[in-house]
């Protein structure tokens, strides 16, 4: 032990440089990982809160086709069993239809969603993103909240009338006149350009749906329970006696683009980290290798006076272990401080903000420090340095005392 510690101090400059290299890698890994995870969480959160919810129960195929006939006939039955499933916090019904929207000046296509205002407030962020007017209340009938970009295209404002023309579930023409009570801006341009929400009962009346709905939106108490809740619901749906053809899908199945783009970004990130690790490994390998070669003579002497090669290996591993630990502890400290500080202030995206918003990322990026992000990177650094350090530790076995002592 003591010997290892003293050996490290023999060449302070080299030691410091090596420690710094390790610390640098740790800081970078912690910060980047936290930033990625933080961004993903926000992306998922935005998508879940404005659109999908954590889990949906719907007719098979509805999520891709959005056909008005693919409806759940008696949603109340299913809701009753859902309320008994643990971890579910809120359940809400939605119905959607495509229709032609006309104001006094303009006509445009729009995606109408019928919602239950009471429940919707709990699961969706649309109510909080109202820019003008107010959100729907349970007593509303022919009221509507409209996406900000859609409102701009239609040239309408609060209080204006909006004529809806679409096809109802039975194939007849569905028509109604709505009054705009609010304008929301969810931050996702595509949604704001097409979406309009009206009370569910009015929707069902207009589109002749009876009591049928298209989606049962479910939110759980945490993202991590989604899988468990989903399998519980699926089991329930497959039991005989329930309505046929219903499926249960989680947010990642409902928006496959989101999860794939996250995987893609993460994959790119992992390649980046792997390259960084290899670079650091080669950078510090020299320190470890040289630590053996410049001391060939010394090792020869040690062996001659009875130190076994295993003992020398142990000393060497201890040395590199010390170095690595110093670097990693330093790196974790600095990395956490940096991450927490940036997490507090946030990274403004400047001119790229509009682009980010398209992907559901808000203007400020905040890295999120978790136990996993704080230790995954340093653990990888530790592993790769130890592997690097093994090479000289093995090499030392090949030293023969007599030859070694003759070496310069």
């Amino acid at each position: 032990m003591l010997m290892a510690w003293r050996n490290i101090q023999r060449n302070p400059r080299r030691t410091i440089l090596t420690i710094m290299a390790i610390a640098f890698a740790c800081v970078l890994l912690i910060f980047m990982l936290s930033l990625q995870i933080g961004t993903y969480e926000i992306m998922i959160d935005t998508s879940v809160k404005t659109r999908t919810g954590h889990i949906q129960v719907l007719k098979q195929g509805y999520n891709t086709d959005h056909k008005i006939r693919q409806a759940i006939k008696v949603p109340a039955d299913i809701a009753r069993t859902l309320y008994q499933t643990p971890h579910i916090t809120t359940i809400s019904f939605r119905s959607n239809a495509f229709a032609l929207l006309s104001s006094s000046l303009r006509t445009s296509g729009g995606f109408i969603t019928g919602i239950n205002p009471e429940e919707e407030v709990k699961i969706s962020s649309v109510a909080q993103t109202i820019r003008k007017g107010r959100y729907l209340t349970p007593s509303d009938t022919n009221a509507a909240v409209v996406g900000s970009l859609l409102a701009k295209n239609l040239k309408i404002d609060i209080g204006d009338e909006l004529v809806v023309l679409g096809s109802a579930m039975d194939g007849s023409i569905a028509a109604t006149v709505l009054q705009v009570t609010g304008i929301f801006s969810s931050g996702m341009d595509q949604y704001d350009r097409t979406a309009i929400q009206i009370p569910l009962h009015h929707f069902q009346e207009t589109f002749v749906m009876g009591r049928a709905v298209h989606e049962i939106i479910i939110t759980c108490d945490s993202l991590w329970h989604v899988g468990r809740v989903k399998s519980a619901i699926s089991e329930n749906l497959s039991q005989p006696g329930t309505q046929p053809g219903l499926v249960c899908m989680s947010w990642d199945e409902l928006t496959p683009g989101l999860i794939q783009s996250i995987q893609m970004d993460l994959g790119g990130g992992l390649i980046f980290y792997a390259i960084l690790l290899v670079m650091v490994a080669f950078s510090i390998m020299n320190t470890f290798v040289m630590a053996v070669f410049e001391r060939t003579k010394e090792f020869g002497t040690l062996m001659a006076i009875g130190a076994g090669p295993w003992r020398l290996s142990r000393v060497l591993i201890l040395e590199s272990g010390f170095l690595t630990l110093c670097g990693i502890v330093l790196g974790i400290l600095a990395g956490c401080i940096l991450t927490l500080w940036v997490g507090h202030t946030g990274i403004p995206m400047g001119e790229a903000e509009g682009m980010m918003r398209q992907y559901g990322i808000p203007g400020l990026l905040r890295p999120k420090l978790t136990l996993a992000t704080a230790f995954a990177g340093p653990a990888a650094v530790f592993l790769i340095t130890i592997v690097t350090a093994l090479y000289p530790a093995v090499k030392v076995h090949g030293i023969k005392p007599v030859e070694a002592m003759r070496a310069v």
Partner: protein
Amino acid sequence: MQILMAWRNIWRNPKRTGIILVAVVIGAWTMLAFSALSRGMMASTLENALNTLTGHIQIQNALFREDPSVENRITHPASVAQLLEQNLPKGALWAFRIQVNGVAANAGNSQGITIMGIDPEKEPQLSFYGDVTPKGKLLTPGDDHAIVVGEALLGNFETKIGRKLVLMTQDTNLETASRAFKIKGTFKAEMQSTEKQYVFITLGAAQALLGIKDGVSLACVRLPDSAGMDSQGLNKVLGSVRQNLPRDLCALTWMDLLPLLKGYLGMFDRFMLLWYLVIFIAMAFGLVNTMLMAVLERTREFGLLKALGLKPAKIIINVLLECIILLMTGLVVGNLLGLLTLYLFSGGIDMAFMAQGSEFWGMGRMVVPFFTLKDICYVNAVIMGLGVLVCLYPAIKAARITPVEAMARV
């Protein structure tokens, strides 16, 4: 003489030199490979965006962009046509289009779409419209009751070639105009959302539907080769066009039309530089360490050289030369490896396994990695420039060695 000395000094410890060389090679190689891949992705995104009915330049009514409705149209396209014929460089393609939002419906389904009135002869060269025709045929001139829709839209409407599709939109009198069309063919685009959004009818049919006589929404221009890729090339073309344009029209480049993409491309260059720096710093620790060791173990030698009258500046140059030779060797091998990688992947990387992910980022399905001369210069300049800079530290260290101290040491 000095170079020879530096060369010999480097190989005094081949193992150490080997390790740091490998580090430099990997550094240069990964920088190049990574930037090639990213550039390929960017190019794919840009090409995809330009191909999705954007083109390099669009001539449109000054109010059209803010409010893309039928009121904001080009009322006298003949003068624009003449202007474009006279001022565009050779090889440039252009065509008129009508673009309005509307609704498509058949017996069971209805959906919001964008109606595109196109010139059947010119359009296929301008956008994805002519790329692949999986079913049926494209429009021909005078085909005023035919419509071409996206492959994915067919499934959405549960319909097939030969069936009818009704288009509804708002005409100039703010009345709803509708007309039935027969599906003649389908097109395939890189992105499903594009296939579901656009339907194509002939220019004449669109004019009749909207009641706008010979008016059009815009003229789309595609420049030859890479003339339209940077603002310099665009401005050269635009200069003459803009001067003669009627006052109520404007000429917009893809940079105006897709500001987000332009911002993204700008950010990309900065991001690349950042990535070079990070890799370099990881490499620099090893480089400085190696050089420092190489210098410190030769303390006696440097002391002797100084005692013999060698000036400190010469010693610095000597150490730096060693460093430069190291870097150069590493860079040459790294660059060769980078080029080799590029060659191996020159067929392009199929992103189909991540189709929805790449669609989310607006990227095409094929990514062909490439780098520009500028990238190679950047990579080499970063490694070389900063490498020499950090090696100044051990070099100065060596120059500071005083003969007496050094020779007193064992």
